[in-house]
């Protein structure tokens, strides 16, 4: 049930294996790994910087994790997010959910990512050969998160 925010790189494969090693009775593990793209429209990107809001970040992630645990019968839910400077192709974020049956693990993993993308205080800044700029938020992420609230109202 870990929440980790760290500047050090991590190994998604080792994280996946640790989920199963740490939990008895797990039948299904779903993972999401987000990477810094290694090819992009703007080929001049040299590095990505992830700013966050230290006082709030882990608290915001724990709140998202706890909401997933309330909605689905999970055995575990884990969130790991890099901050600081990241190189191309490095993993940025890793989310893993485990459950007895797969549908809960799939839904919870996607829910956590949709909420993380719209509610967790991280901001990406791209460093290119011609300067730096902040990455714009995407309306598609707002819509993805809103789907869960609509689904919630329907079933009440």
């Amino acid at each position, binding site marked *: 049930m870990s929440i980790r925010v760290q500047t050090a790189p991590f190994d998604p494969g080792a994280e996946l294996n640790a989920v199963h090693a740490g939990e008895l009775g797990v039948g299904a593990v779903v993972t999401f790994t987000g990477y810094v793209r290694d090819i992009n429209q703007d080929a001049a990107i040299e590095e990505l910087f992830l700013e966050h*809001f230290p006082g*709030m970040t882990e608290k915001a992630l724990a709140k998202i994790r706890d909401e997933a645990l309330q909605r689905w019968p999970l055995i575990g839910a884990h969130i790991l997010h890099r901050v600081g400077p990241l190189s191309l192709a490095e993993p940025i974020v890793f989310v893993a959910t485990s459950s007895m049956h797969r549908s809960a693990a799939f839904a919870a993993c996607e829910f956590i990512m949709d909420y993380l*993308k719209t509610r967790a205080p*991280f*901001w990406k800044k791209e460093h290119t050969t011609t300067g730096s700029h902040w990455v714009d938020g995407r309306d598609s992420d707002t819509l993805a998160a809103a789907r869960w609230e609509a689904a919630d109202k329907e079933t009440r």
Partner: protein
Amino acid sequence: MLTVQFLARYRESLQCESEQLPWQEQWQTVDDVRQFLIARSGPWTVLEDPRIMCARNQDVCSLQEPLQAGDELALFPMVTGG
């Protein structure tokens, strides 16, 4: 007193990370404080951003969230993690 923190792009535009504001009785919501800051004009109009986000005492909230003296308010652009 109200502590206001500015993050990411806003912090850079305002060249300000955090500010202590003497509490004003007419402030009821986050948006009242935001309008007070925008009224300073110049770089502060960055807070007119229609996608602005905010957190009261480190919980994401809406611009209509009620505030009270002693709160910590954070104003920040749409998040882009993950």
